[in-house]
């Protein structure tokens, strides 16, 4: 099955270029809104402003960061759940590398910016040029806005009020849904998406943080290896 971004290197027309840049900015702004609540939760969990910002600058992977501050009372559990959730970025890098073919320093940056949003945007395009532009533009807008929002949230936590009152906790699942929707075009991906979400929800009450998402990844591995539904 040829994936998006593997096709012929079509030259990028102006309309596609504009659409990709507009969507990349949109993803950055949405993630920034969520970053505000991460910053606020970080200082509420007794991390310093510098520690909260260090997580966003270096780890730069939202779900892991939320898991970390969520169990900050136990530093070992916090670190382990962050790493468990961060594992999926390793899987994503299997997908982004053949699209980007980065060399030298760009290779490090490509790895650092390999997250849910950039992988979803890159693999959602037709043509390799659009896929590369989507990765780099989304990476840049999310990195800048996520970090600025983390700082603003950490410093202004007291004035921001509860992230729930602003509905910020609904922003991220909605963003994931919008990123997921374009790839539900065939029956096979729809089945994988449905089974993965049921597995994650069923496992949540009975497994430690991070494990439900890994079990969902296992659904993709089993479907891919066995070729079910091909």
């Amino acid at each position, binding site marked *: *099955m040829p*994936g998006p971004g593997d096709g012929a290197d079509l030259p990028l027309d102006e309309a596609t270029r504009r659409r990709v840049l507009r*969507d990349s900015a*949109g993803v950055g702004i*949405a993630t920034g809104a969520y970053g505000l609540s991460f910053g606020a939760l970080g200082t509420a969990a007794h*991390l310093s402003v510098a*520690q909260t910002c260090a997580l966003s*600058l*270096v*780890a*730069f*992977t939202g779900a892991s960061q939320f898991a970390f501050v969520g169990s900050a009372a136990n*530093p070992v559990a*916090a*670190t382990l759940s*962050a790493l468990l959730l*961060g594992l999926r*970025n*390793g*899987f*994503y*890098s*299997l997908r*982004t*590398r053949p699209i980007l073919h980065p060399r030298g320093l760009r290779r*490090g940056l490509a*790895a*650092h910016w*390999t*997250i*849910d949003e950039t*992988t*979803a945007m890159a*693999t959602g395009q037709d043509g390799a040029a659009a896929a590369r532009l989507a990765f780099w533009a989304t990476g840049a807008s999310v990195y800048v806005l996520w970090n600025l929002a983390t700082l603003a949230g950490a410093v202004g936590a007291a004035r921001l009020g509860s992230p*729930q009152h*602003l*509905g910020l*906790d*609904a922003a991220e*699942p*909605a*963003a*994931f*849904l919008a990123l*997921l*929707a374009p*790839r539900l075009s065939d029956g096979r991906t729809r089945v*994988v998406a449905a089974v*993965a*979400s049921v597995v*994650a*929800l069923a496992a*949540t009450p009975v497994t430690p*943080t991070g494990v*439900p*998402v890994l079990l969902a*990844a296992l659904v*993709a591995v089993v*479907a891919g*290896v066995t070729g079910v539904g091909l």
Partner: protein
Amino acid sequence: MTWTAVIAASLGCLGLKGVGYLLPTRSLAHPVVARVADLLPVALLAALAAQQTFTVGQSLVIDARVPAMAVATLAVWRRAPFLVVVVLAAATAALWRLALA
């Protein structure tokens, strides 16, 4: 919270992202690897969306995020731009909580 945990989690998460860039290129060309890599974002995005809608910590809950996701689903189905989907979801959750407060 100690800096040790912050640094370990940060560098660990960063290192995990490098996995696919350190493996030999040949291993990526295998059709099974390509198929799994294609399906992984689908499974993970679906699982994360479901989890962030229906769970708090380790409990399953139904709250303002559910109507927010219903509105987001409708917006996605009507092919609304990305940012519109997200803003509608946040606004729905905020208004829902305001109405019930």
